[in-house]
């Protein structure tokens, strides 16, 4: 349903992505793993149309979207939970969730989806009138995910959802990612936490300084020596 072919992104003279190609099938969880500065965030920003690409193509549901505006990309069904959550701190939890549904018109469906999000994240319901900036880190991550779900995405991009969270919360978030996937949302999960990511993904790509160096079945990669050495601590 989604593929990237030979994508190149530059920041001035820095060549941040070099001929990156990857493919995601309907219903999969695919993870993109890499260490600091590998280009994971750049990949997601390019997919969402925030960072322009120099060459290459991005295809979603058989349409080329590499030149599309972010608004059109969101409309076509790709939502992103950005790195560092990036919730709107001075808006209430409810308003943050409403912003997620910004491009949708059907009030009744939006209301139902809001209930779904509240069911998935009961803590957000308790805190719906609170300013988002006052939430804890874990709650903010949940809000960022709930906000993205309010767009009813077909493909959900997650940028390091485990960042800065306690092991217990990381478990909880990953469980929620699995649940979201079960209800039919395809997922591209960017992580530095390779262990957790490989444990829930179907397939994985390894990104090193802007290049895809390995790819394959998540369970197979988790067994491979190279991956174990570099990302799983031996």
């Amino acid at each position, binding site marked *: 349903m989604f593929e990237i072919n030979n994508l190149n992104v530059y920041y001035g003279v820095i060549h941040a992505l070099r001929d990156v190609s990857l493919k995601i099938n309907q219903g999969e969880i695919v993870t993109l793993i890499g260490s600091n500065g590998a280009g994971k965030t750049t990949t997601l920003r390019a997919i969402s149309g*925030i960072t322009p690409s120099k060459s290459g193509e991005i295809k979603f549901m058989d349409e080329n979207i590499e030149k599309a*505006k*972010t608004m059109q990309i969101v409309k076509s069904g790709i939502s992103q939970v950005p790195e560092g959550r*990036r919730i709107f701190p001075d*808006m209430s939890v409810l308003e943050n969730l409403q912003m997620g549904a910004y*491009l949708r018109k059907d009030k009744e469906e939006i209301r139902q989806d809001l209930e779904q999000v509240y069911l998935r994240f009961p803590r957000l319901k308790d805190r719906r009138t609170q300013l988002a900036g006052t939430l804890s880190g874990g709650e903010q991550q949940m809000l960022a995910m709930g*906000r993205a779900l309010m767009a009813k995405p077909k493909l959900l991009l997650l940028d390091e959802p485990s960042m800065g969270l306690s092991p217990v919360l990381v478990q909880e978030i990953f469980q929620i990612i699995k649940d979201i996937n079960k209800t039919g949302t395809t997922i591209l999960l960017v992580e530095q936490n390779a262990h957790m990511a490989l444990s829930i993904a179907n397939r994985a790509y390894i990104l090193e300084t802007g290049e895809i160096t390995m790819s394959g079945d998540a369970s197979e990669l988790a067994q491979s020596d190279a991956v174990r050495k570099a990302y799983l601590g031996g």
Partner: protein
Amino acid sequence: MEQFLQQMINGISIGSIYALVALGYTMVYGIIKLINFAHGDVMMIGAYVGYACVALFNIPFIPSMLIAMVVCSILGVIIERVAYKPLRNAQRITVLITAIGVSFLLEYVMMYFVGATSKTYPQGALGAGKLSLGALSINVEQVYVITTTIIMMIVLQYIIKRTKLGKAMRAVSSDQDAAQLMGISVDRTISFTFILGSSLAAVAGVMLGAMYTISPLMGVQPGLKAFVAAVFGGIGSIPGAMLGGILLGLIETLVSAYLSSSYKDAVAFAILIIVLIVRPAGILGKNVREKV
């Protein structure tokens, strides 16, 4: 006591004008981090449009004000599209200089067309006479100014807090990339901000014009004062601009009444400097959390 109350009313009414203009500064700053130095001149254009409607075409006051709001909104959007948008990724100083350039452009183009001499709205355009409340007598003009400002502020609060575009505006002000990821168009939201700010400036311009006189340079002084008011209240903060404007008007009026009118600017600026030393972000401003 009556005299004091009288002065308070004078202060609030001039402060209302500052507040209306300050809102434009603060909203534009909030969204694109630019001090739009041409804002006072947009107010001046509003005053002239209102004047043309009232004095030349005999249109009643309120419709004239609405026309001025529409014209200024269009002007504001054009200024943003033509002058500021191409510089969105440029250094701030470049944009600031451009804003000053736009300001001069508006002033002197206007001077070319209408001449440098000042004009006055027809007598009593904004209402004439006085209302007496006990020993207090209030100019009807002032009642209109204060009421109009209150209505504008309520409408503005409603737009910003409740409407989709208003929420989009807050989202873009707070985090442009995240707002884009929601599908919000940053360009359209910025245009909308200029529409709001310029309409309020138009309202201020028409009322100021009707109370005093109009000239192509009439926007300079109040524009500067309103900018000060916005900084005073906390640049980027909407309640701050309202409060800053009213306070500045009050301080000025009370100083002129009880000390001397020649000190009013000195005292107002001294207070500003003290506030900024004590609270660099302004009275209601948040402590700067600049994003990198």
